[in-house]
Structure formats: structure tokens, C-alpha cells
């Protein structure tokens, strides 16, 4: 497990917040990654997919460029591929059903003091913590 890194955490968090601010101020859009990516595989929102593709491309390129400059991305995924496949389905379906993920609800929704986002964030963080507790300490 990595150590506690509050400074880089705060700094990285502020970059995420600034990115969300720019997208709202200039394009009028919420930086919800599940919504942006989900729109690409939803027939209802295929119109105007250009900005979604651009945002996702930027996300991958930004992460890649920074990691390359800073000496490699953090590696290692602990979960096995079958678990990751099940988890991926749950994350994909769940974020769309619940109208958002960590970015949409956790960063943008809470910033607007949305009751829905506060409730959703409490639920997904609580269930995720419970899942880690059961999978790491019970089973």
C-alpha cells in the first residue's frame, strides 16, 4: 500500500476541479466521466459526440504524457481479470442507473450542493468501503 500523500492529493484534486470549472464555464457541461463516456455508447446522445471523444482522448493523453514525464504510471492492478470484468459491468451499469460517478456526483454535484449527488456519493462510498472490508478482512 502507498503511503499518505496529502500534498499531491490536494494538488491533483485542484487540477481536477480546475478542469471541471473550465468545461462548465466555456462549454456549459458537467465533467461527469460516466456521463461523458456513457453518452458514446448510448443511441440517445450520439448526436454531438465530438466533444465527448475529445475529452476522453484528452484524459488518456494527459495521463500518459504526465506519467511518461514523471517516470511511469503507477502499475499493478490487484484484482483478477474475472473480478475486473464483473466489477466493470457493475460500474458501467451502476453509474448510468445512478446518473453519475465520483466526478459527476462527487466533484460537480456536491459543488452545486445537489441533494441527489450528496446522497449518491454517500451510498457509493459506503458500499465500496463495505465491499473492501468484506473482500479484504472477512473472506
Amino acid at each position: 500500500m502507498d503511503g499518505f500523500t496529502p500534498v499531491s492529493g490536494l494538488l491533483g484534486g485542484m487540477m481536477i476541479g480546475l478542469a471541471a470549472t473550465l468545461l462548465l464555464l466555456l462549454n456549459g457541461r458537467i465533467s461527469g466521466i460516466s456521463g461523458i463516456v456513457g453518452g458514446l455508447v448510448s443511441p440517445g446522445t450520439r448526436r454531438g459526440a465530438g466533444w465527448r471523444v475529445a475529452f476522453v482522448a484528452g484524459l488518456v493523453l494527459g495521463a500518459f504524457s504526465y506519467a511518461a514525464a514523471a517516470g511511469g504510471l503507477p502499475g499493478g492492478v490487484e484484482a483478477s481479470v474475472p473480478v475486473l470484468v464483473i466489477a466493470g459491468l457493475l460500474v458501467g451499469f451502476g453509474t448510468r442507473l445512478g446518473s453519475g460517478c465520483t466526478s459527476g456526483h462527487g466533484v460537480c454535484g456536491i459543488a452545486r450542493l445537489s441533494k441527489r449527488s450528496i446522497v449518491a456519493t454517500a451510498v457509493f462510498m459506503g458500499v465500496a468501503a463495505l465491499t473492501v472490508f468484506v473482500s479484504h478482512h472477512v473472506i
Partner: protein
Amino acid sequence: MSRIIVALFAGALFGVGLVVSGMADPQKVIGFLDFAGDWDPTLLFVMGGALLVTMPAFRLILKRPRPVLADGFDLPTKSAPEARLIGGAALFGLGWGLSGFCPGPAVAALSTGLTPVLAFVASMLAGMAAYAWFFDRPDNLRSPVGARVPGGGPEGGG
């Protein structure tokens, strides 16, 4: 065209932020979610840092009649949490806890080219497509993507 460039730049800044903060590392995320283990509170600082910027900024931005480059703000319009929101958040939490990946970091981690990341993202897209197939058809008005609300909208989910 300018909106595409903004989206590309915002995505890149978001991606750098995910790597700098440690969110792109699923083991670090698990370390945050593992309250009973060697708990790493870093992610509280990530979310705090983001909210430190978005809370005051969103408040100011949504006072504007419209965004700089578009006709209106595209915001969620619902205000009350309902069973669907809570059920979806619970399913997401289960998947997040099992993998350490939420959508943003998973997409950013595609840049590693690692097979487990590719498997997760492919599966996540399948889950999203399944949702769209069930609930988000063009003839179905239950789309979670909010209506366009000129001049900023009422509260609602993200």
C-alpha cells in the same frame, strides 16, 4: 471547433490531475476504502482539493446567463433522490470496491495498455451499453442526461 479544443484540454488536465493525485492507481483507492486496514486518507484531500475549486467557481459560473462558448448550461434537472439513484450508486460502489476503479481513473489508466485495465474498461462500456439498451432509447424520456437549461438550472444530480 473551439468547444472540441476546450474538451480536449479539460480532459487532459483532468487526466494529469488523476495521476498526480494518486486516483489513477487502483491500489491507492483500495487503501482509501479500507478503513479497517492501513487506512490512507489521501483521497479525502483529492476530493477536498477539487471541491475547493469547483464550489466557489460553479457558484459564480452559474450566475452567468450562458457559458462562454455555448447557448446554455447542460445540467441535471432532477432534485429528489429516488430508488433508481440509490440502487445505481450501490451497484457502482460494489464494482468500485471490487476493482479500485471508477470511470475516470479507469479511462486514464488505459494509457498503461495493461490487459486488466482494458478488460475493465471494455466491461464497463458493455455495462453502460446495457443500461442504454434498457433505459436510454431515443423514444424513452427517462434519459439521465438533463435537459438544456438556459441560464443555469435548479439543483439536481451530477
